């Protein structure tokens, strides 16, 4: 790392440009910065992009812990998934339900939370700090927390309130019900995901010019009207980006579902990421796992492109 210091001499006048000087100016403007970036780029290429390409390659093979002589099998894995697999289409449907509801809940509640934390309240910075508690809570503990609240017996909080309110006659084992397991998962994902959305929207709200609000108020716009005609357009860009981040990360995240239900009961809450795990680590068929992962990537690519076409701010 001592080499840069050798080139410290003042540059000669530009009319005497030599090759060395040009090299030096390239080094100063570009080379030095790229050199700094190089270690990280290599790390990510090796640790991230190489495994990704491996996954995509694997989908076209019959590799697996039980395959004696693995090799390329063409599109066989994909055909098997799309036509023969009894669970695949249900899992695709689950993935869509899970991602859309999670993202919408996170965005709506996150935006409302940001409005609250942006208003004039005492101890605002304390509340903004406490906001992040769910974000720092480890996923398995998120699972513990919500499993405990939705405990299947009388001692669960949810059962206590729902039986009191007369929704149920007797306690329900939420996690064993193909229907009631979804609200539990969505509660958990909203709880865990809202803080980050709130943080981003809060930052955008602080950039909304106050005089816009005031002038709209003078023009007779009520609070709701101002929210939709002043606030929302001003933070539109952030909402779009936040939605995109939350869409893609939720799509590839399997931890939360795994911590709460392991994809069950049966395959009722399995999504594509958990199915990758099932194929790879329960059934030990890596080729099939690669094929599921490849399809997941293709689908989210199409969904993200559609999302961008629909919601991108056309003016900017």
């Amino acid at each position, binding site marked *: *790392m001592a080499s*840069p*210091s050798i080139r*410290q001499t003042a540059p000669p006048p530009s009319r005497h440009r030599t090759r060395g000087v040009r090299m030096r100016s390239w080094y100063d403007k570009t080379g030095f*910065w*790229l*050199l*700094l*970036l190089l*270690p990280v780029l290599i790390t*990510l290429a090796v640790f*991230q*992009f190489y*495994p*990704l390409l*491996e*996954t995509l390659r694997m989908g076209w093979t019959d590799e697996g812990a039980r395959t004696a002589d693995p090799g390329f099998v063409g599109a066989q894995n994909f055909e098997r998934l799309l036509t023969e697999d009894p669970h695949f289409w249900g899992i695709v449907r689950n993935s869509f339900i899970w991602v859309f509801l999670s993202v919408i809940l996170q965005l709506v509640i996150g935006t*409302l*939370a940001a409005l*609250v*934390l942006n208003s*004039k309240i005492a101890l605002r910075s304390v509340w903004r*700090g*406490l*906001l*992040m*508690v*769910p974000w*720092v*809570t*480890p*996923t*398995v503990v998120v699972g*513990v*927390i*919500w499993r405990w*609240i939705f405990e299947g*017996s009388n*001692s669960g909080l949810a059962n206590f309130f729902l039986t009191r309110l007369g929704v149920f006659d007797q306690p329900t084992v939420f996690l064993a019900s193909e229907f009631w397991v979804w609200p539990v998962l969505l509660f958990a994902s909203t709880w865990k995901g*809202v*803080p980050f959305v709130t*943080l981003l929207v*809060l*930052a955008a709200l602080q950039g909304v010019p106050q*005089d*816009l609000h*005031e*002038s709209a*108020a*003078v023009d007779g716009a009520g609070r709701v009207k101002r929210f939709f005609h002043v606030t929302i357009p001003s933070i539109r860009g*952030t909402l779009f980006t936040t939605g995109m*981040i939350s869409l893609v990360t939720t799509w590839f995240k*399997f931890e939360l579902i795994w*911590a709460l239900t392991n994809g069950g009961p049966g395959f009722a809450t399995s999504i594509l990421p958990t199915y*990758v*795990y099932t194929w*790879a680590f329960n059934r030990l068929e*890596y080729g099939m796992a*690669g094929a599921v*992962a490849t399809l997941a990537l293709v689908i989210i690519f199409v969904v993200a492109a559609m999302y961008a076409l629909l919601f991108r701010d056309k003016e900017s």
Partner: protein
Amino acid sequence: MTTSQVTGEVIAPRKKRVRPLDLIGRYTALFVLMAFLLLPALWMAFSSLKPNSMLFGSTPDFSLEGVSLDNYRWALRPDGMDMTQLLINTFSTNIMSALLTTVFCAVAGYGLARYKGGLARALVAFLVISQMIQGPMIMVPWYQIAATLDLINTREVLVLIYQTLTIPAAIWLMAGFYRAIPVELEEAAAMDGCSKFGTFWRIILPLSLPGLAAISLYAFILGWNDYQYALILTSSEYSKTLQIGIAQVMNSIGATNWGGILAAGTIAVIPAVIMFSLVQKTLISGLTAGSVKG
């Protein structure tokens, strides 16, 4: 727009008055929000103080009766869940991982902040894709590579894979912190004959210590929060993380010892909360500054 700006100035003083109804609405909303964010975790912490016999009543137990630390004793002691080893594993793995991330991103973040050439957009795209392509998209090859290199059930493999988790966001954060340092400083140093690397090492880096502290703890928290990679790569006593330990206990003895599991969960949250509160201000401003432009 122009007319409204004019009228906006006229009305400005009137804004100061706050109607009591507004105040009530505002604080009710705050209360509901905080209840949603905090009560679930507090309910875990509260219940963890109660003996199992009281946790399995015919209603949830809201009373202060029977409060004790027995569940915590079970969670930490060798004759119970023995979380001490899990804590040692998780701490040492994540301290290593955070240090590595910090070194990588301290250097690369500066490059990202100052590089303005043609590849800048490609670099950002590369980082964003790395950030988003996680877990299931890379876990099977990672498992195979780790198995080939005999790294399954080691803390080292977790330190390595956590780099994929932490680097993209941490380099982004670090670049943001560096951008806040005026370029004039560097120009002045160059005038005085300081080399580019010397400027970085002697002037920029010392100014960035709060940022470095923030990203190292950020990396620590991200690693502390990981479940999926630890799940496929570690299960042995000396490598598995807290979350693996808790998940195993929950799946094996599950509903028979809720008190102990709730205590274990509470223990697992506390370090992350403490770490976060240490760098809360820098981290929140860094996380938000990077995103607003996007």
